[in-house]
Structure formats: C-alpha cells, structure tokens
C-alpha cells in the first residue's frame, strides 16, 4: 500500500444496477496495472471528487485481483453521488483496510454464513473463497434474508450457489405474494433448521446490528459459542487507519481492529445501547 491517506485514482470499468437502491461498480487502477490484493471482509475508502469519502466493503473475488468490485446501497450524499458515476469516470480509492473473515481459521469446520439485505456484499468474497477451496470445509450453509423477493441481492448468483450439491443455500423474505414459492419468515428461523455441527462450526454474520443481534441469539440457541461467531461492524469513519478515533467502538477501532470481530471480543460492548 502507498500512503494510506492519499486516494489512488481508479477508473469505473462497469456499473450495474443490482436493486432499486443498490448498484455495483467495477473499478481498475489508472496509474498502474498492479493487481489489487485484498482479504475477504476488508473495505476501502471511496472518494467521490468534490463530494466526500465513505467506507465500502470489497465485494469481489479475492482470487481475481484484476478488478475491484464494490456493491453499494444509495443512502445519502456520497453514495448517491457514487451511483451517478458512469463508465470511464474516476474515483479515489484508499485501502484495503481492516480485518477479514476467518476463512483460513474455518478450514476443517462447518461454515454457516448468515446475512441479510446488502450484508451479503461484504460476505461474498468469503463465499467465493470457500467455494474455490470447497474441499477444505465441512458442511457449508448460506442463509440469506431480504425484505421481499425483489430485494434479493445477487439473485442469479444465489441461484447458482443453490444449484450446487455441496452447499446448502436457503433464502427467506419478510413479505411476498402468491407467486413466491420460497420461505417467508425471518432469517433466524433458518438458523434453527441446523444442517451444521454447532461445536465444529464457524459462523459469519453480516447485516444491520438488529439482525446480527438476533442471529447471534439464534446461533447460541443452536449451541454455537460466541468464540466461533464472527460479525462485521459499522461505524462512521474518517481516517480508516486508527488515527482519528471516529470509529471507536468500546476499546476498539472498527477501521483497524475490525470491521470483522470475533463476537466474544466485542460481546460486552455490542449490548451497550449508546455505543
């Protein structure tokens, strides 16, 4: 990495509308053609010229460093401006930053991935890694929740994963009408269906904090201990390298000690209401 505070210019190679409010940018460096190496779970700071900078997880394949992929939900000033970018436009990138999903530590264990909404984007690199190295893992279970069938992110890709015989993929939605033949209910309900050995499972959970809270509970109910559960946290960020303190979460800085935490390490702070 060069100076971590100076954004490197990247060119938008492709844009894709994923959902009504969610899009994917594929980026390539302008100044050099060095591959962009990262670990599943890490994030970049994306700088839109004249607008501002935001942390966004990398959602591409860590095995293919030739293209940098970010999937973003448009929620405010910077992400709205990002959505307006077109093929050929430039964007500044700092990163990659932060900790990663325990894809190596999980080798030899069952893996349960529980996610909802756009939380699938930060987990997708871990899923790619696990699929590429499928033989190194026990049972692999992917549980995904979305508001409606129309809000399912990466739907075609999920269908592809589902068609494999060596991964158990379940999707559920909060609301649907008669044409939907899948599950309706919360993602925590899927956790209770099992398909993994709780004492030999590593769970990776990503989504809004409310979702993660109930998913951790559901995993605990199944017998998965907190030192086998990993979550990805979000806090507002500025420097992304542990200087400014913007992202402080209890004793930890989310940018440097996270965003991926083993749950037992943050359990106490996770339940503090105003943190």
């Amino acid at each position, binding site marked *: 990495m060069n100076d971590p505070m100076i954004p490197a210019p990247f060119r938008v190679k492709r844009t894709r509308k994923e959902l009504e409010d969610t899009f994917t940018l594929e980026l390539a460096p302008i100044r050099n053609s060095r591959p962009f190496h990262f670990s599943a779970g890490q994030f970049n700071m994306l700088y839109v010229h004249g607008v501002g900078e935001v942390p966004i997880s990398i959602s591409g394949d860590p095995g293919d460093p030739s293209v940098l992929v970010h999937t973003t939900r448009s929620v405010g000033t910077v992400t709205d401006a990002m959505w307006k970018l077109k093929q050929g436009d430039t964007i500044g990138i700092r990163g990659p930053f932060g900790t990663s999903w325990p894809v190596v530590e999980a080798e030899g264990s069952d893996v349960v991935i529980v996610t909802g909404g756009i939380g699938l984007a930060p987990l997708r690199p871990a899923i790619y890694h696990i699929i590429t190295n499928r033989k190194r893992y026990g049972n692999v279970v992917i549980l995904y929740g979305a508001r409606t069938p129309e809000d399912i992110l990466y739907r075609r890709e999920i269908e592809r994963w589902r068609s494999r015989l060596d991964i158990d993929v379940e999707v559920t939605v909060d609301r649907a009408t*008669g044409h939907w033949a899948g599950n309706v*209910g919360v993602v925590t309900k899927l956790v209770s269906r099992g398909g993994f050995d709780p004492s030999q499972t590593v769970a990776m959970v990503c989504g809004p904090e409310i979702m993660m809270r109930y998913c951790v509970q559901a995993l605990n109910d199944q017998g998965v201990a907190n030192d086998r559960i990993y979550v990805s946290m979000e806090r507002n960020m500025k420097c992304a390298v542990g200087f400014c303190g913007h992202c402080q979460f209890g004793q930890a800085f989310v940018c440097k000690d996270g965003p991926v935490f083993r749950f037992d390490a943050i359990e106490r702070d996770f339940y503090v209401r105003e943190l």
Partner: protein
Amino acid sequence: MVELKSIADLVRDNPFFAGLSEEYLELISGCGANESFAAGSFLFREGGSADKFYVIRHGGVALEMYQPGREPIILQTRRDGDIMGWSWFIPPYRWEWDARALQLTRVVSFDAICLRGKLESDPAFGYEMMKRFIPVIHDRMKAARLQMIDMYGGGAR
C-alpha cells in the same frame, strides 16, 4: 394399525412432543391421521372451523391472507417438522388465515375436537400441551415483529 404406529413414531421424534409421558404420547397419536395435499391445495381456509392442528412431515405450507382480485399476501411459511395451527385452542375455533401447500405436502393432522375433550378432562395433560404451544406462539410472534421492522434495511445496510 400400521398408520397409527407410524404416527406414534413421528410424535416421538418431534422435539415439540419431547418429555411427554408414554400415556400422553399415545393419547395424541390416537388423535392423529396422515394427510397429503397437492401443490396449490388448501389445508384450511380463513373462517373455516379450526378443528385440527398439524405437524408437517414433508413439504411446505404458505400461511396467507387473501385479497380479492389480487395475489394473496404470504405471511409466513412452514416447513418439515413445523407445528402449524393453534386456533383450535382459542374460541370460537376459526382459522384466521389460509394455509396453502407450496408443493406436495404430507402432514399429520391432529383432531382437535378429540384433543380438546381430553385436555378439558385432564388438566395435567392440558398444562403439558400449553407448555408446548406457548413457545410456538412466542416464536411466531417474535418472527412477525422482526418481519415488521425491516430488519435487513436498518441504517445503511
């Protein structure tokens, strides 16, 4: 007789009935019958008399609310092993939703009229059943609340 035995096995294997005495397990099994529903057919419909509850052996069921001239709204789905239906417990014993098989679905249905009589005459049995149905109701309510709050859209994620 063969059918009765397989229902007794199912009852014994389902965690919902775990811990019930042999006597009660037999009682419940005696009220059970195997049924199967083709995809798209209804196990029950809103307003109908709730005289059964179900354990899904295999398949899927959508609990849904019909709306005239439009697609029904699916509230929740039930899958293998799930317990379905508690309106048989609450007067005036009417179903509040439709239950539609999403695929070929095999269930054991339990005759609530026969069970209600036994629950009334044996309060200990009634209590054992309450202890099992209340957590199911609690689970469903919790799920319904989480479904209501748009859990996956909260904040930026």
